[in-house]
């Protein structure tokens, strides 16, 4: 067992490694197992409160969906120009949210950024679950959801294939690929941890983990293949994640609508996706840290790094956002310009300014170390950033429909009714319910990688000594 008690080592560390330690490297490996496994034991009260609240929210969403299913989409107060409402806006929001898991996990993995290790697992879970939530929105949004399989390309007696020209089919394929790949990535990276669970579980759970861990024993051959495969999948995932959100952007960019027909939409969407995902990671980071007492692993230096990353992405997004406005303005297409002006001054001006404020000004809070280290402030800021990102999606969908090419069908002050509110709220319930379940079934902190982190620090210190 590695023990670092040498006073001299600590002194060296203090002198030559001025940056804050991401994690206390004096944690014993067995303690890591114990801490993480403890989070999967019988839940505390706080867990039940969050879980039941999520369940209730989800239940209400299901009720709204049933109501809408039985009556038709009119129940959601959609109309001729406003054909999409909040569903598509929230769909993009969830798709965007999913991107940070991949970013943290894959990009930082390739770059050997060790600080990702305690937090990437829940970020990946977030990716998976927000993709599943996004998928739900596709279904909720369909007028005839019972025929949704028409979009899938499969040989059938009708001899009719889906329309491969349609960005929606690209979407379906890209999201399907992304969901499959991220589930694979999440599970694959979890196999060593599942073996730990297997070794510590009893009864049915043992059987379950025994099945899932696929007989992992941590042999050198297993580790070698695992490393290569994990890195390869990570490499695949980065372009995939970029392609997914840029394809979602083509839903808009390919179309004729003023305000959508913009070349910079794909990078703009990707930046927005990473932005909202990072903000969501901060939120979940704080929640998990509190609920599961993960102070030892989800440490302040890691939060600090995540916040700095978020700030950087926020600035990228701000830039691309300004590029969008500037290109519309400079491009001088009267119709697109009118739509832009409508956003800034029309019925939705409040939301537009709020979006710009929350998206571009509030992130400056992340630039201050004192604020970064203040957990309540960060919780509020991260939620505000995500609200801003949701508003961004809302601003893309609703005002464009309200003020499109055709003046006769413009709408004023269109806002959804309770069914849409209910379903959107229900999606948060669904996401959070899945996430809470995940926390109790799977280890939310990657044990083996935290061990690696601790060990590498120890070795490095040894070497320096």
């Amino acid at each position: 067992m590695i023990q670092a008690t040498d006073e001299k080592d600590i002194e060296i560390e203090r002198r030559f490694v001025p940056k804050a330690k991401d994690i206390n490297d004096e944690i014993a490996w067995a303690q890591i197992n114990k801490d993480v496994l403890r989070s999967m034991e019988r839940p505390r009260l706080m867990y039940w409160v969050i879980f039941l609240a999520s369940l209730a929210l989800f239940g209400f969403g299901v009720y709204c969906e049933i109501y809408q299913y039985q009556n038709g989409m009119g129940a959601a107060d959609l109309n001729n120009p406003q054909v999409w409402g909040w569903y598509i806006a929230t769909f993009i929001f969830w798709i965007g949210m999913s991107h940070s898991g991949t970013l943290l996990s894959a990009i930082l993995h390739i770059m050997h950024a060790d600080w990702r290790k305690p937090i990437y697992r829940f970020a990946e879970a977030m990716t998976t679950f927000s993709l599943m939530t996004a998928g739900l929105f596709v279904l909720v949004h369909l007028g005839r959801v019972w025929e949704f399989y028409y979009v899938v390309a499969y040989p059938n007696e009708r001899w009719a294939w889906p329309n491969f020209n349609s960005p929606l089919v690209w979407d379906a394929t890209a999201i399907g690929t992304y969901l499959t790949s991220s589930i694979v990535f999440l599970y694959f990276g979890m196999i060593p941890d599942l073996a730990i669970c297997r070794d510590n579980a009893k009864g049915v759970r043992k059987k379950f983990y025994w099945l899932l861990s696929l007989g992992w024993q941590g042999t050198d051959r297993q580790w070698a293949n695992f490393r290569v495969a994990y890195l390869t999948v990570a490499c695949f995932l980065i372009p995939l994640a970029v392609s997914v959100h840029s394809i979602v952007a083509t839903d808009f960019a390919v179309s004729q609508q003023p305000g959508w027909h913009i070349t910079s939409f794909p990078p703009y969407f990707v930046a927005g996706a990473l932005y909202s995902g990072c903000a969501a990671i901060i939120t979940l980071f704080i929640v998990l840290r509190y609920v599961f007492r993960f102070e030892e692993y989800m440490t302040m230096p890691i939060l600090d790094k995540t916040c700095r990353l978020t700030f950087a992405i926020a600035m990228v997004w701000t830039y691309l956002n300004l590029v969008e406005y500037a290109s519309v303005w400079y491009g001088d297409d009267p119709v697109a310009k009118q739509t832009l002006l409508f956003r800034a001054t029309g019925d939705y001006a409040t939301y537009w300014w709020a979006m710009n404020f929350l998206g571009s000004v509030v992130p400056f809070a992340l630039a201050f170390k004192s604020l970064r280290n203040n957990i309540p402030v960060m919780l509020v800021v991260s939620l505000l950033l995500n609200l801003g990102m949701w508003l961004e999606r809302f601003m893309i969908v609703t005002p464009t429909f309200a003020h499109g090419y055709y003046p006769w069908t413009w709408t004023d002050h269109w806002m959804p009714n309770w069914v849409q509110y209910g379903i959107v709220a229900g999606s948060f319930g669904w996401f959070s319910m899945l996430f809470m379940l995940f926390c109790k079934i799977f280890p939310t902190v990657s044990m083996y990688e935290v061990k690696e982190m601790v060990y590498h620090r120890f070795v490095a210190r040894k070497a320096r000594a």
Partner: protein
Amino acid sequence: MSSSKIDRRDFLRVLGISGAAATLAGCGNTSIESGAELVESFVQPEDFVVPGVGVYYASTCAQCGSGCGVMGRVREGRVLKLEGNPKSVISGGKICGLGQAAVQVHYNPDRLTKPMLREGDALKAVSWEKAMGVLTARLGSGSSLTGEQIAFLTGEVSGHQKVLLANFLESFGSTNHVVYDALSPAVGHEASKAVYGVEQPVLQIDKARLILSFGNDFLGTGPSPVHMAAQYARFRKAPRGTLIQVEPRMTLTGANADRWYAIRPGTEGVLALGIAHSLLQHPEYAHSISQELAAALKPYDKETVAEITGISADAIPHIASLLWEKSPSLVLSGPSAEGHVRGFSNATAIHLLNLILDNRGKTLQGQANHPFPQLSPVSGSYAALTRLNQAMSAGKCQALLIAGCNPAFTAPTFVPFASNMSKVPFKVAFTTQLDETARQCDLVLPLLSPLEDFGTHVAGYQPAGVELMIQQPLMEKLYPETKGFGDILVDLLKQRKPDAYKAFPDYYSYIKTAVLKAKPVFKSKESDDNFWEDALRNGVLDLDLPAAQIDAKVSAIKVGAPQAAETGMQYPFYFVPSVRADLRDGRHANLPWLQESPDPLTSVAWDSWVEIHPTTAVQMQIREGDVLEVQSTTGSVRAKAYLFPGIQPDTISMPLGQGHTGYGRYADGIGVNPFKILDPNFEEQTGELAMYATRVIIKKTGENAKMVKDEGPTTLQQGRKLVVTMAADQAELAKEITRVAQ
């Protein structure tokens, strides 16, 4: 057809339309399940029915008095859709929205299917035998009613129904046929008669180079809108005619004008005389009128006229010079000019322009004198209703029969029609659907819809010669306990005058005999059967007659000193009700297609609204959707404000036709009824209700609601180049290939 010995189906078979009607009997049959049916082959279906193939039958539209020929598409015995009948001169193969909706009168879910008899406060469904028993007990052979004691109140009615109705009343020694039309053209007719000698001159719109219309909505609510629209289309082809419209509130016709002027309501006559004054500057016109008249026109200089009418002083000589340039012209007077206390003199002043411009015989002609004037309709009037109202009030009326009008809905509040009605001991309504008036009657007899019934019609406005329009059933009747109006009249007459009517088992045989009697007039050499079959197949019997000459009487035109419009400070706004081309006086408010069909000018559907000019609205801080209370001396109504630029700024306008309280699911609770706030102003010459003379005050109620309208928040094209406009002098219409409607 309980009372006829010969089944109607046999009649139809003779006429070669049996198939369409006969297969209907199978609808809703459950005897198949009980094993009572034999397997039938479709190899030899009924004559004229090919499963899956639509067949067209000619008939006549009864939705308004225009008498358009229509073709009904019938499939498997169901009438599906109406098209225009190309053989009809009036419709020319075209049809309006109102006509289309006739199928919804027929299939209306709120149609009356059984006779209703009053028991205490409520109407209860009874059998046809019982209903007829009650009717004949009062009005049959044993009836002792005479003269004034019986009254028949109808809307505009023509053809043999009108004849039977007169004969029925005659059997009581009565001539008490009261024809009421809430939107009565009576003032216009009187004025025309006084000036031209004809009530309704034939307008040659297509021949005019310039039309100056004072509120005449010939495209929307005129006497024959479909016919006029076709003429208008030709008018717009090379050489393109120019339309100038002067009215307080833009009508559909005004919306199509090359130049539209908003005029202060009631001052149309002043403007007309002002234009006449300007025209007299041209020497060739100076001779066309007498010296006294010319002298009387003196005070109508452009400044005075501009002051009174609100139209710029420059516009008056401008219009006059256009009239001088573009000859022949046509000057029209319309309801918004006529519906005032001085409406008659307004109309005659407008007609004077036609005389000065010598449009007689060019764009204005008399209707042909035809050989069956007894079939022509009597147009309705408000005065007739007043007389009936007085008779009822005095308790003179013992029996009141009502068909085709709804005075309980359309009569203004100051006319206590409903309470007077209760003084009549026996009230009978003939209707296809219960309305506000029928609900107050003692007996309601359900009529066949016009698509199930035979009939003959002669339109009040005959564009060329005369057309006897034939109406025939397009399908078997939907409800067994309904009956044609004509059939009921024949039944009653058989009681009253058995000898004269015993030869006619029903109305069908009556009109067939009557039409065949008229065969010599049509100079037909066909056999009777062929003549009748042709008449049914064509749906129209045409008689080409020369147009009558217009014999103008300038003496009818009295010109006084120019009078300024009244300004009432307590009621600062003029109230101009607008008539929608589809809902008219509200009789069509039960038809869902028409309710859903947006008003062309405001795009509002399913609702009432208050039109107010945007500048006025800004002054009063009124936004669209603000609920306004519109108050006159007789009452008030509440409706949402709609900002409408096509209105004179001192005027507000509300559409008529909505606000029903007992007219079925599609009409009830929709909007408000502005008939109820009309002030008791009457045209001084004719005694007609001055519909456009009401003055109101508007108050904000503080509520705001969403307008039920099709358009979005903008009414502008926003630079999108959707409707592109070309100046008339650029267009080369003569070079274009166009299809001209005939």
